Structure formats: structure tokens, C-alpha cells
């Protein structure tokens, strides 16, 4: 179990500046469904790096959807840069969205555009000239390991390659807020580290980052606060440096319980050929 603190992060200030995002008693439900998120209140300071974890279906993606303005809360208030989102008009949305970069869990690449054009999309939509950004985009794609796939159709890429295009697209315009929904779910751990490094660098340049992931190994690499969602509620853990002792204890317990838990799970409902082994 590695618990060491990466020294490159100690100088990042997490609590100094005004919040870029503030949630006040936010609740959210889909249509007539049950409340997915309940009564969330938190601030994300400018320039912070925030992990978001929680079991599958806990509402991580839903929370991120609120932040990237793809959904509205059913109750409570969300403010961006001090501005209440409820008062936003349709016309103001695009400009706010250009300050936010998003990596979607399902990538959402445009299969009729090349990898290069996908990555360059936010710049193009913002009206930038191709000749101005071509070099930067190419360099970024090379960094995520896609230097030789720039002309490819995203549909012909492997899962991990697609994920990296999605990441390149999200960071290319160096947004003020970067929202990443499991950005490393489809890549091996070496590439995951490489990508995390990209986020860290962006964070150092001032971008507020929210990074949803199931990969606890990755979480452990950074000394950043961790929001965990469970049953609609959020719990924010301070950065590891602030809670070294308790963390160590909890993690050790979890590791010990790991194999035990696997055996305790029980038998799934499968028909055995002879029908004898089935537990009803």
C-alpha cells in the first residue's frame, strides 16, 4: 500500500481562493424518479483538485451533470463564479460552457470527425483559426499517445484510445473548470498515471478539477480532497496530508477485508447442469 505524498502537490493551495462552484442544499431527481442527490452543500475553491468517488449508481455522473450544466437541480442552488445558475439564460450558457471542459464517461466523440478534429472541437466552436491551434492540438495528442492516430476515425480506436481523445478535447481549451468522469476507466495503470499527470499540470496552471474515479490506487497518488457519494449524500475527506493517521488505518482494514469479502459474496443464481448445486 503506498501512502507517500507526492511532493509536487504540496505547493498547490486548496483553500485560499474564492469558490468557483458552490452547492447550497442541492437536490436532484430524474423526472418522477427518486432523489438521486439529496441536500448537497459544498464549495469548490478556485484551483482545487477534487476526487469524486462512490459506488456504481451513487450519483457521481449526476453530480457532474449538474456542474457541467447538462442538468438543473430539482431543489437548492448552484452558483458558478458567484453567479446563481437558476438565473442563467439560454444565451449565456455557451459562454459559461466554454470555461468548462468535460470528459464524459461514455466519451461522446463525433465519429464523423477525425481524432484531430474531435480534439480541436472546442477551439473551432469558439471561432479560433485552424492554423492557430493546429500545432498545440497535435502536441497534446502526442502527449496522450495518439500522435500517430490523428487522422483516424474515433470509431476505429480502442476503448482507451477513445478515452484519451475525450481527455484531449476536454483540456485543449485550458478551461477554468475541468470535469472528468472516470477518465481512466479504460486505460492501463501506466497510461492512467500519465493522464493524471496531465490533469495535475493543468491544475497547477489554475484549473479547478473534479475527477470522478473508482480507481483508489490513483486517488492515493495525490494528496487531494476526496468527495465520496453514498445514498445521495456527500462526504468530503480532507487531503491525505491532513488525515494521515486515520486514513492508514481504514485502508489497511479494507485491504484485509478484500479477499474475505470475495468469498463472502455468495453464489450467483446460475443453473448448474445437474441442478444440484443451485441454492434457491
Amino acid at each position, binding site marked *: 500500500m503506498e501512502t507517500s505524498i507526492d511532493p509536487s502537490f504540496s505547493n498547490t493551495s486548496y483553500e485560499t481562493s474564492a469558490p468557483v462552484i458552490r452547492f447550497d442544499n442541492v437536490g436532484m431527481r430524474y423526472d418522477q424518479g427518486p432523489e438521486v442527490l439529496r441536500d448537497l452543500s459544498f464549495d469548490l475553491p478556485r484551483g482545487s483538485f477534487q476526487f469524486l468517488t462512490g459506488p456504481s449508481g451513487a450519483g457521481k455522473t449526476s453530480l457532474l451533470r449538474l456542474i*457541467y*450544466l*447538462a442538468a*438543473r437541480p430539482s431543489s437548492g442552488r448552484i452558483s458558478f463564479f458567484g453567479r446563481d445558475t437558476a438565473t442563467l439564460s*439560454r*444565451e449565456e*450558457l*455557451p*459562454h459559461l*460552457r*466554454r470555461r468548462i471542459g*468535460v470528459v464524459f464517461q461514455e466519451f*461522446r*466523440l*463525433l*465519429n*464523423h*470527425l*477525425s481524432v*484531430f*478534429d474531435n480534439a480541436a*472541437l*472546442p477551439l*473551432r*466552436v*469558439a471561432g479560433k483559426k*485552424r492554423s492557430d491551434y*493546429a*500545432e498545440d*492540438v*497535435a*502536441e497534446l*495528442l*502526442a502527449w496522450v499517445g495518439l*500522435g500517430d492516430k*490523428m*487522422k483516424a476515425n474515433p470509431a476505429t480506436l480502442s476503448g482507451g484510445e477513445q478515452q484519451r481523445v475525450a481527455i484531449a*478535447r476536454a483540456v485543449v481549451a485550458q478551461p477554468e473548470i475541468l470535469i472528468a468522469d472516470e477518465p481512466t476507466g479504460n486505460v492501463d495503470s501506466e497510461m492512467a498515471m500519465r493522464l493524471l499527470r496531465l490533469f495535475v499540470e493543468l491544475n497547477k496552471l489554475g484549473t479547478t478539477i473534479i475527477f470522478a474515479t473508482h480507481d483508489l490506487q490513483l486517488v492515493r497518488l495525490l494528496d487531494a480532497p476526496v468527495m465520496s457519494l453514498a445514498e445521495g449524500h456527500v462526504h468530503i475527506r480532507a487531503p491525505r496530508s491532513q488525515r494521515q493517521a486515520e486514513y492508514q488505518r481504514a485502508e489497511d482494514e479494507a485491504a484485509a477485508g478484500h479477499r474475505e469479502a470475495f468469498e463472502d459474496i455468495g453464489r450467483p443464481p446460475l443453473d448448474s447442469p445437474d441442478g444440484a448445486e443451485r441454492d434457491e
Partner: protein
Amino acid sequence: MSEFEIPPPPKGGAGALLPPDAGRDRPLFIVAAILVFLACIAALGARGAWQQSQRWTEDLQTSLTVQVRPVEGGSASEDAQRAADIAAAMDGVANATARDRAHAERLIAPWLGTENIPDDLPLPLIVEIRLEPGIEAPLDALREAFDEAGINASVDDHSRWADAVRGAATRSQTLALALLALLAGAAAAVVAFASRASLAARVDVIDALHLCGAEDRYIAILFQRRFFMLGLKSGAVGAIIAVIVSLLVGTGSQAADASFFLPSWENNPFEFLLLAIAPLLAGATAALSARLAVITDLGRRW
């Protein structure tokens, strides 16, 4: 920038932001072309009917026929000549020709045969009067003048025939225009539905563009441009086929009554205008229809 090979800019510029959706627009293209073709045929047909009726009624309206009957003790041919002179002297009359007895005999030959007519049979003689174009036939003045001159004449302005021709022309024109309206409405409806469907089918693209900070206007223009091009192209194809068909029909031999309803290509400005305007009209209809559909749909989000 040497180590990376930057892909060339996409063809078609910003339009390429929408997927080309190869096969999906093709039925729409064909349908639009068919609709424009039929609309052009209908328009050419309406135009043809109008022109034909104009030509016929003009013929009928610029000529008068006078029947001069012999009066007791007078000479029919003298009376006819006098009537022609009187008519020719009138305002608005281009010329007047008195026909002789042989002409009158030919007219009744189908009824009496040629050998049966006694020389002393008092046949009425015909005076043909041609008016200057655009002149109201001076029926009353003619009748008065003939009465004064003691000529027993009846004047026929063909109005019975002209009315019938005009009526038929109006009917066929109405028919063609109704068809035209139906086709235009159908085309607009088809494009509106299609652009809405196309929007729904590309909701992922729209979402991605939105979340990259694209404005509604930006997206609407993408759709508008695509459907304008589709309308333009299919309109051009439809119009050109219509021209070809009307040329073919025009050269084929045909009875007058059929040509009354068939489009025919007259080498004049109206047809060229129609050819030029049909694709533009189709494009504009498509673009407007698409824009309305897209803006309405996008407005419902957020």
C-alpha cells in the same frame, strides 16, 4: 511543427461538423426531387393552359363574322361589299373582307350537297372582319351602321366560343395551381419532419457541440445550410427533369385538346425564370423549415 502530421482541414468547412449521413438523406433527396418535378410540371401546365387559352381567345376576340342576307330586290354580293366597306372605315377595324357566293356554297355543301343548290337560292354571304388587337369589338356601332345602310346583317363576336375556351382554361389552371399548392405544402412538411428527425438522430452531435460551447444559432446554421443545399440540389434535379419532360412532350405530335393540359416548353422568360427559381424556392423552403424546427427543438432544452 514537423514531428506531427496535422490532418488537412475537413472538406466543406464548418458544414462538416454535421455527419454526412450518407444514405439517410437520400430518400429525402429523391422525394424532394419528385415533389419539385411534379410542382414544375404543374406550374408549366398551368402556364401552358393559360397561354393556350390566351392564344385562342385572342384569335376569337380579334375577329368578327358578319352574315349578310339578301334583301328583297337587292344584290347580296353588293350588300356584302358595302358592309365590308362600312366596317373597314370604322375605328379599330384592321381589315374587312367580303366573301363571295362560292364561299357561302362551300359552307352549306355538307348539308345540301353541291349539285342541289339552285342558282337563285338566296344564300347569305359572309364578311370577315379583323380587329386591331386589344380593341373592344364595336358591335353596336357596326349593327347601327348596317341598319342605316339598309343591310340585313347579323354580327357574331364568337363570345360563346371564347367563354367556353376561357372556362376550360380557368378550370385546368385552377387544377394545376391546386396541385402546385399541395406539392409545396407536402415538400415543406416533409422537410420539417425530416430536419426534426435528423436533429433527433444527431442528438449526440448536438450535445457534444453544446457542451463544447456552441450557440443555438451556430447549430441552427449547420442544419439550415445542409437542408438548403439538399433542397437546392434536389430542386435542380427535379426542375431539369421537368424541363426535359416538357421538351419531349412539346416535340411529340399531339392533338390540341391534350396539349391543353400538358406542360410544354416555350422558349420564353417565364420558363427560364421557373427553372431558375424552383431550386432556390425548394432550398429556401427546406432551410426555413429546418431552421424553425431546430430552433424550436433546441429552445426546449436547458
